């Protein structure tokens, strides 16, 4: 609903109202996410404002990432949800679509972004990306080439994996 409200307004919004509507939207998203109470993904505002969140993704069962936990960060722009948040892996993640700095190549975070996506869908997309990489547009070519050999991939993955501190 807030998406519709925002769309009907002009694009020349003042920063104050923009940040108020972003805050409201993120507040709602947080509430939805907490109500849903899903296992395997988590996210929460990091610090005093709602524009920066930290989160974790647990590798889906039945994949090489099974049981591994990765930390991510999300930065929301002032015109969210009309622009995608900037999402990075904070822990090293050996993955064809993730580079060593934590940048992620995922279409819905780039050109395919739409205002109907939210934190929860982003987290779920990232979780499924772990098990189903897009090897046609790799950021980590070595990992993309190794993907065929899951056992070798797992070995390489575990060399770089550090479980997040509690």
């Amino acid at each position: 609903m807030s998406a519709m409200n925002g769309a009907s307004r002009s694009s020349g919004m003042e920063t104050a109202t923009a940040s108020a509507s972003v805050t409201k939207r993120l507040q709602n998203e947080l509430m939805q996410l907490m109500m849903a109470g899903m296992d395997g993904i988590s996210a929460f505002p990091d610090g005093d404002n709602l524009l920066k969140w930290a989160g974790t993704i647990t590798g889906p069962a039945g994949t090489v990432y099974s049981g591994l936990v990765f930390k991510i960060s999300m930065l929301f722009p002032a015109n969210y949800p009309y622009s995608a948040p900037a999402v990075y892996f904070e822990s090293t993640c050996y993955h064809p679509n993730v580079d060593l700095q934590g940048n992620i190549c995922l279409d819905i975070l780039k050109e395919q972004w739409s205002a109907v996506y939210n934190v929860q869908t982003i987290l779920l997309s990232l979780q499924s990306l772990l098990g189903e990489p897009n090897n046609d547009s790799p950021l980590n070519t070595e990992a993309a080439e190794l993907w065929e050999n899951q056992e070798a991939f797992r070995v390489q993955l575990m060399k770089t994996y550090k479980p997040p501190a509690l």
Partner: protein
Amino acid sequence: MFQVAAEVAAQAIEVRVRSSCSGVFEQPKLSLCRAWLDNVVLPWAQIMHLDHGEWWATQSASVHALTCNPLGTQETLPRVTVAVCHSTCLRSISELFNIIVEYPHCMGALVDLKTCLKLPGMRSQLVESLTAATQERLLQPSADTADILTQYVSMIRCLRFLDPPGVLLEHVAAPVRDYLRGREDTTRCIAEDLMNESRSDLIEELTAGEVMEEGASDSEDEDRDPDNWEPDPIDAGPKLNTWKRRNADAISMLISIYRTRDVFIKAFQTMFADRLLAITDYDTDKEVRNLEMLKLRFGEASLQTCEVMIKDLANSKRFDSLLAEKLSETNIPIHPVVLSRLYWPEFQPESFQLPDDVARAHEDADAVFQTQKGGNQRLNWLPQLGSVQIELELGDRTLDVNVSPAHATVIMKFQEQDTWEIGELARALEMKPEMLRRRLTYWTGLGVLKETKPGCFVTQETLEEDAAHGKSNKRQGYAMLVDDMDDHDNADEGSAADQRAEQLRLYWNFIKNMLTSLGSMPLDRIHSMLSMFMQGPVRFERSPAELREFLDLMVREDKLELVGGMYRLKQ
């Protein structure tokens, strides 16, 4: 000689005042008393040569009489006139509680009292006497909260008239406010009053008053006309805030019984929800009007939730007409109200097996809803909030009743077969036996069913006509009423407990997410994070101590561990 005459005069005045001023509050009596004084007492005093006497003389009393000339004129009054005022005043004060009860038909008495109140010592007398009377007659467990509130509002208006700066009021009102704060149903009663259209006096004030901002400007005397400035009365303590007191009308005095307005906003929300859910034709005009008035007073932002509720009903109306177009005639007609879950009080769906037709109608409606919303949202039915209009055709009569879906479902089972055993029926409906028993009792009360042997119910196709039976029927009807109320109470309790559980679950989800995403944290940080980010309808308003209790419980349940003052999730 003078002494005796003076005493006679004093007694006569006393008697006169008592007879003319007692019990009648509509008309001012003081001027009548004074006329009597001038026409009867003064001539008599002249005959008795009292007018030169000590007691009488204006000259000896002139200083005194001038300073307290209660009539506000510059003339020096004879002391005897002052005595009349004094006597009137004491009488009114002792009857002030009754005077207030009569409000607004007590203006005469109030005018008199206001005139006389300038006599020395009267203000403190008034506070003392009225406080005592209120304590004794009003602040008793047997008094209805609504009555206390009515008297409180009248008291506010009367005392405001007597003493516009509101000092007297502040003194007398304090114990009433303290008392009301201790009563559980006070918020509900106030909210009911404010939403009750028949309380037109309050409604008027509601629209007249300005928006109350919490902690609004303390700009003491700025706005007021400097020419008409009057100092605070001498009994105004330094603690009382002038600005607030001068501007407080009945409503803000009501609201200010509590320190925050949030309790009212919550009460409004609950009552709004109840009222809107009771509407069967989607017509919310009355509620919209009421909400607009409340918004004038409480500000737009705090009532946004109610706004959403009303909008939900408007949307539901549209959805209902869409449904009427899309769904075939063969379906049971249903009129859904779609609630935005986050903005309404929590309702726990009561689960039981709805009749197939109804369940199918629900599914169809859900399908239409999903196509309308693009598949992102779906309906979660809350059968206990609905109502059903059913017509029962029995052997010798037809009955038209409006009942809850659960009641309707129960009786519809008797279409399939005439006799049901309670356990069997409970299994068929997947309903709790104790709830089922209550619903069956409702129908036996109406004479539709009959319990032939314990736990076995049969439809009663024909009513037996004999008088004795009629009587027992009546008694059963009464039992049914009681039972039905029971039903509600229990259901309420059940859902309140469920709501608490739901809330704790939500807290836990927040804490779990926070600790997973951000790592372990000390208590005060968890507390500040929850206070900061748990906003909106489920605002976090627990103290750190309450939170610690909850966290410790989680530690005992082996979900958390406390290491070096930091809580962390147990793996």
